[in-house]
Structures are given as structure tokens and as C-alpha cells.
């Protein structure tokens, strides 16, 4: 996992609640056996019609959002299936930061393990940003160390993030390597419980 400390990016507003992982990456694209190459399929059924043509009415297809990397979404983002293909697809497409009032538990863990910054933010603030971002050309700068988000006019908002998650993102830590440092404890547990 790559370390990430700060990020500035073009904001894409996805004004929908309960966006499930079936929407983020439909099942027909789950058959790959690699972690890469899922970006082209992100939000597939919203971006493309049945014949595979781009839907003009879906904002992510519009030129003013080309190169977007900060996703704003409604509550309970990432609910449903546990497929990690969802964060893989979002990351591969270019999203490095997702801001929403709340995230589903499994998605939250999955995204974090792939170095996506997830920020929980009050709905009123998100609604405000959604409006500003509607027509494109709206940028936010995220500073993980300071736990602060700034718009181009210098307005800054603080955000909370569990310190452990913050550390992990900033250092790009690999959970398995960290856990294996405690291998003696795992062994002791197995011996004690005869697991």
C-alpha cells in the first residue's frame, strides 16, 4: 500500500445515498483474478447503457469531471457485498479520497487497506460542497496530518479520523507484516487454546 499524506483534487459530487458495491462494480466484472484493471468498470451501469455506449446524462461522463480524484457521496456509501473489487475499481479510476456522512463497515476496512482516504463529514457540509462541485472546477485539498480539508478560497474544515487509521495511511503500513511481528503471541494463543 502506498503512503499518502495529503491530496488535492477535483471533486465529483455523487448525490445518492446507500450506494452499494453492486453499483460501484457490477458482478460481471468480478471474474478477474488480479487486483488491477477494474477502474474502467467503476459505476458501470450508470456510466454506460446496455450497448456499452456512454450515458451523456451521468455527470461522471462529462468533460468537466475528467481527472476527478475526490468523491463526495451520500450516507452509507459502500453498503452490500464485501467485494474488495469496489475500492480497487475506485482507486484504479483515480479516486484517492472519498467524503461521505457515513460508510458501510466492510467497505471502510477494504478501502483503508488500499490506501484510500475515507472521511466522515457532516451531511450539511457535504450538501454545501455538492452544490459548489455541481458544475466542475471545484477542488478540495486534504491534509491528513492536520486533519483538515481546504477549498480554493482557503476555507478550512476539520475532520476526525481514528489515529490508528491515520498512522496507517501516512506510513503505508502493511497489516500482515505488522501482525507477523506478533507471531509469537499467535503461537502462544494456539498452544493455550489447542486451536
Amino acid at each position: 500500500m502506498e503512503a499518502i499524506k495529503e491530496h488535492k483534487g477535483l471533486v465529483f459530487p455523487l448525490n445518492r445515498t446507500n450506494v452499494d458495491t453492486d453499483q460501484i462494480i457490477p458482478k460481471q466484472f468480478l471474474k478477474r483474478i488480479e487486483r488491477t484493471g477494474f477502474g474502467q468498470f467503476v459505476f458501470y451501469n450508470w456510466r454506460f447503457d446496455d450497448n456499452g455506449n456512454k450515458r451523456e446524462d451521468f455527470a461522471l461522463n462529462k468533460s468537466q469531471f475528467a481527472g476527478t480524484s475526490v468523491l463526495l457521496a451520500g450516507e452509507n456509501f459502500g453498503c452490500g457485498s464485501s467485494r474488495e473489487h469496489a475500492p480497487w475499481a475506485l482507486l484504479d479510476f483515480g479516486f484517492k479520497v472519498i467524503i461521505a456522512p457515513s460508510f458501510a463497515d466492510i467497505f471502510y476496512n477494504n478501502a483503508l487497506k488500499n490506501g484510500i482516504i475515507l472521511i466522515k463529514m457532516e451531511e450539511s457540509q457535504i450538501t454545501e460542497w455538492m452544490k459548489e462541485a455541481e458544475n466542475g472546477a471545484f477542488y478540495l485539498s486534504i491534509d491528513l496530518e492536520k486533519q483538515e480539508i481546504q477549498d480554493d478560497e482557503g476555507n478550512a474544515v476539520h475532520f476526525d479520523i481514528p489515529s490508528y487509521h491515520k498512522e496507517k495511511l501516512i506510513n503505508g503500513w502493511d497489516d500482515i507484516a505488522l501482525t507477523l511481528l506478533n507471531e509469537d503471541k499467535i503461537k502462544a494463543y494456539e498452544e493455550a487454546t489447542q486451536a
Partner: protein
Amino acid sequence: MSKPKTVIEKIWEKHVVHQEEDKPDLIYIDQHLVHEVTSPQAFEGLRLNNRKVRRPDLTFATMDHNVPTKNRDVVKDEISRKQMETLRKNCEDFGIKLADMFHPDQGIVHVIGPQLGLTQPGKTIVCGDSHTSTHGAFGALAFGIGTSEVEHVLATQTLMQEKPKTLNVHVKGDLGPGVTAKDLILAIIAKFGVKFGTGYVMEYTGEAIRNLSMEGRMTVCNMSIEGGARAGLISPDEKTVEYLRGREYVPKGEAFDKKAEEWLALATDEDAVYDKTVVINAEEVEPQVSWGTNPSMCVPISGTTPSLESVKEHKEDVKRALEYMGLEENQPITSIEIDHVFIGSCTNSRLRDLQNAAEIIKGKKVKDGIKAIVVPGSFTVKLEAEKLGIDKIFIDAGFEWRDSGCSMCLGMNDDIVPAGGRCASTSNRNFEGRQGNGARTHLVSPEMAAAAAVEGHFVDVRKFKSGVLS
């Protein structure tokens, strides 16, 4: 006396390997279940880092999502086949037991775990699949994980997890006649929403829950994730013990009785305190039908789709859901006509589910123009049903009788609802495109699905049984 505890806390405390301040706990995993869709990248990660599977003996794999349910040996989709071959190779290389497509133990991972007795009270059970919560019916702490976590468990047999908060979902009173476990869980999600369980592990308590069969309990726990909770469980009792007695992977003889005592002691103590409690009255629950594109968009069979005027929050989402589903506002549920019926999935594909549906369909015919399929949850379920002649009841009525797998629950194989098609489905998710691009899903119980198959539209199965529909 020590502080009274919930079953959740008891299991957690027994599994902590390591604790540090301000960090998630490191917990031990007793049983790891693996399927073909969410595991390839995890094994790839092991290889890249030269790591082994720490406990192949605590790991069990099957193929369920991609498998064909007719003509088993013809996997048309090249990529599907590659995914299943990859699992076979990974299991061989890392020494993991695999129930492949043709193995007698094959089935949907959440059906075979309990069936084989791999699922046991007090265990921590994980799988790269959100419906792992199903195994909670046995008083196990079971939850879905992502592929990075699958790799973590393979390599270390542990997971880093925040200690969950506890949520008591208390069901008062008992369900009325003709009302099922599926109706109960749909009503719970309709009442409290798709995220009331986020951050919690749910425990279902109360008379109605105690009275449910183990199959019914699995149906309820299965859909905990649809209420936002990673895990949902039920304190073990005598029913749990009896269900497990004699199963392949449980201890035998005296050792079993000793185990059973341990299991029963796990039940939540009287006076244990939960972080949150919600209450629902079982007596008020009617048969349910979902009308929208998430499982909380669900009403009693006597109800209608919502009127937009009455919707206070996220009106746009409700509007979009009605549009996607091709429904009007205020439309009576009984007026919704269907063209597909799917009886199956890890929610409702066990022997008892099939028996219940067969009872409704017996001697009747599926209405013309409806494609109806039954997909047993495992090979074993299929064989047992055939022994009882249940396959014949379905086939005589006009259903297709298939081999086991996930099938039309998510349509990763050929079992797809076409765009614009409308399906009465006993599965757990009615998301846009879930059963096929543009497909419309209505979540119901097996009984309600069977009655809809006969009538061509949704009906109150209680009236259907009595023969008086209006």
C-alpha cells in the same frame, strides 16, 4: 459474581490474541471459509510475499458463485472457468480442502458450513463474503471480510478488528401463522433502515427468535448485513445443539456432550447490558414484499408503494427506485405482476425452505409465461429433497429443478433475469442490476414466491392457503 455478559463479549474475549491501546484488537479466527470470487488476489498476495497459509486445517473452500446450475460440466464463460481453476490450483498448492463443483459437499458456502458442522457456537468464522453473518444463527461470531483481510487470515489466522458495539434486536411476541423468518427480517430492516446496525454486532433475542427453526434463524442472521451490521447472532440453545449433533465436523459421543455444555454456557447472561436495543413486535409482522432497490424499501403485502409526497428524506432516491422498478407511487403490492420466480440463495435454499414452498405449490401450476427455478443450496439439500419427492412437486408444477449454487441471486453464471424482467426472489438483495442488468427484484419468502408463481402477481400467502384470495 462476575459481570453479566452478552454472547458477543464472551466470544470476543476468548479470541483476543493481542491488545494495544488505541489499536484494534488482534483476534484469532477459528474457521475460514473461502470461495472462488474473493480469494484469487489473496493467494496471489501470499505468493508475491513468499508466505504460507498458517492453518490450512482451519480453512475450507468451495465453488458457488460461478457454477452452472444445469449442465454442470459446461462452463461457457472462459473467465468463470479460469476463476474456478485458479481456486483449485490455490487449494492444491496451499493444502486446503476444497469441495469443488462435483464434490458431494459442494454448495453455497453459507449453506454447507452449518450442514457439515464446521459452523459451531463460540467460533469466530470469516469468509470473503458479506453474508457470512448467516453462521451467527449458531451463536458463532461470523462476519464478511474483504480480500486483503482474506489474505491476512490465510497468512496469520488472525484479524485486526475493533471490538464491536453490541445491539440487541429484540423481537416481542411470536409470529402469526403463515408469517416466516424472512418476513420478520425484512420487516426489521424496513423499520430500522439499512444502516442501523453499522458498527454493531446484532444479537436477535425474544420469543419469536427462540421459536424459529435453525433454518429460520439462519435466514434472519443472513440478512444482518442488509441492516448494516457485519455480524448478527443468536445465543445457542438446545435447538442449536440438536441441529449439530452427528454432523461430520463436530466431536462425537461424550466429547460432543462436553462441547455442548460449553456452547450452552455462551448464551447471553441475564441482565447483560447492550450498547443499544431496538424492539419490534412480531405479532404485527405481515408477509413482506420489497418494492424498491434496497432491502429497507419493503412493505407488507397489504400495502402499497410509497407516495412521494409522504417521503421526507432522500425523496430523489425513492423516485429513482420507483423509476428503476417500473412502478407507480401508491401502487398496491398485489397488483405487481411478475415474470420470474427464483427460489434459492443462502437466505432461503435449505431443505425446509424448499419444503415450505413445495407445500404451497403442490398440485398447482406455475402461471403461463413465468420462468420459475428452484436452486437448492447444496448438493446434499438437493439429494435430500429428491429423496422426499420434493423435486417432483416443483417439476410437476412447472418449475425447473437445478443443481446447487448462488445462481440467480447475483447472476454470475447464466441464470440471469433479463432487463426489464421482474422477479419474485427469495434472495437478500434487490439492488439495481443485481439479478441482471436492468432486472427488477422483489424480495419475498419462499412461500410468497411460490404463491406468486401460481397467481402471476403477489398475493397474501395466508389467504392463498385458505383458498380465498379477495
